[in-house]
């Protein structure tokens, strides 16, 4: 469904993505994992063409295909129209708009009124709390509610692919669980393909069908969650289950990753 082929993104003289390739199949939940500064958010922003403002030639190298069509030179609103929904990191709701206005803004690119209405019902079905808070200013809601609002807002464009940037950021474990449950629901019931960017590796592995591990702008692992979970390195550095002396192990791991 989404095919990312060898893309590079530069911040001035710093190369943030060193040629990343991955693929997402329809109906899957795919996780993009990695620590701080690995390039996860940059990857999503590159797909959405949010650096377009700053420079025309973006991504600098490589191609991105969505549903067989190249989108790496399209404008953001066209990409949204084609069916990619994006929930940005840190929620980014419109603070002074009401909850309902926030959600309806999500359907900005759509023209079919009846479809929008039924989707609104669907969003309220997934997030009953949003219906209760209907006319509240979004900026006055709690972090978890704002996250739900951001997801609901993205769903209103009726995306075929939903990209979530750290949905668990700043949420309590129990809320994280709830959000992930809803994401799973969206994937299974609505048939929306999900690309999940996470630092919470444990959670992400639990809910995804396939996972990519990013490090320093390169993909260093790509496998099914079950396999990754058993991997010694991932166990040690991402899941926090230490099996050998850390410093030595870290050095060994660094070397391994560098030569890949």
């Amino acid at each position, binding site marked *: 469904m989404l095919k990312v082929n060898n893309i590079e993104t530069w911040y001035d003289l710093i190369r943030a993505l060193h040629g990343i390739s991955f693929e997402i199949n329809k109906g899957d939940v795919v996780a993009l994992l990695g620590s701080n500064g690995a390039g996860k958010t940059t990857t999503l922003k590159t797909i959405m063409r*949010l650096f377009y403002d700053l420079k025309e030639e973006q991504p600098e190298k490589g191609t991105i295909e969505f549903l067989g069509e190249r989108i790496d030179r399209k*404008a953001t609103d066209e990409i*949204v129209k084609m069916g990619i929904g994006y929930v*940005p990191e840190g929620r*980014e709701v419109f*603070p002074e708009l009401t909850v309902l*206005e926030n959600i309806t*803004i999500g359907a900005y690119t759509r023209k079919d009124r009846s479809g929008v209405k039924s989707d609104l019902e669907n969003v309220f079905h997934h997030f009953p709390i949003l219906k209760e808070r209907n006319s509240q200013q979004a900026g006055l809601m709690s972090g978890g509610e704002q996250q739900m609002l951001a997801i609901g807002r993205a769903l209103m464009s009726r995306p075929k692919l939903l990209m979530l940037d750290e949905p668990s950021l700043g949420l309590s474990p129990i809320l994280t669980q709830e959000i992930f449950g809803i994401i799973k629901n969206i994937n299974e019931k609505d048939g929306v393909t999900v690309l999940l960017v996470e630092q919470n590796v444990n959670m992400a592995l639990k809910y995804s069908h396939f996972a990519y591990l990013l490090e320093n702008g390169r993909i260093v692992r790509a496998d099914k969650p079950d396999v990754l979970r058993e991997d010694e390195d991932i166990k040690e550095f991402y899941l926090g289950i230490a099996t050998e002396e850390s410093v030595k192990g870290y050095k060994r791991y660094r070397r391994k990753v560098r030569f890949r």
Partner: protein
Amino acid sequence: MPFKQLLIEGLAMGACYGLFGLAVVIIYKTSEVVNFAAGTMAMFSTYVAFHVITLYGFPFWLAFLVSLFFAAVLGVFVEFFFIKPAKNPTLLGLIVITIGAQLLLGGLAGWKWTADQQAFSIPFSYKVIYEPIPGFHISQWAIAVFVIAFIIVTFLFLFFKFTKLGRAMRATQQNKHAAKIMGIKTDRVFAFSWAFSSVIGVTAAMLISARTILDPDFMMEPFLRAFAAAVLGGLMSIPGVLIGGGIMGLLENFFGYAFPSWKPITAFVVIVLVLCVRPSGLFAKHYVKKV
């Protein structure tokens, strides 16, 4: 007793300031640019109306429409050729750009229409005076100002509250990044808000010039007053700028009546005092923006 006269006249002038302040606020709200060229842009568009009336003999209302259209085009033009080419500008840079646009337009107007003072008249004269309630004298001009201000404000309220584009404008103002993700063409929203602001600006400018005179500098003073009204209202809120404009007009009129030689500075003294007490204006709402 001049009190009632001062009140009505002050409110009418205040409404003009408020309207013109709206032009400043709309741009500031969407793109966080303080448009120092607003006055000159409005002046230029008023001259266009003047031009088509005197040279081509257009009836006033047709000239009015021509001028509105021209103002919209001018707004988009300024946004596209002055503001947009600046990549990642600083606030100061933007201010300098708008001042540059102002100088350019002012120079153009002076070259085309000379610096002579002209009389610009609209069908509502301030010399025709009614007395609806005994003792209250209200000029035709003042009535027109109130009616037009009311129409524009109602329209703006409905527009921002209920239309898709209005909501998109508010969304863009609050979070440009997220607005883009929603598929809003933010470039178009900016261009539109400049056109919008320019149209409101020229409406106010015509009302003001009908009361005063028309020359390439006539909008300078009202612009500063309107800007002060906008600052008083917090630069962000539409009701705020209207109230600010009202306060401004009233103060100026009453104080100017009592101490005529101090009239020009009253407004600014008040601003300084208000900003000392409430630095973000009287009606500003606080939402901390992420950088």
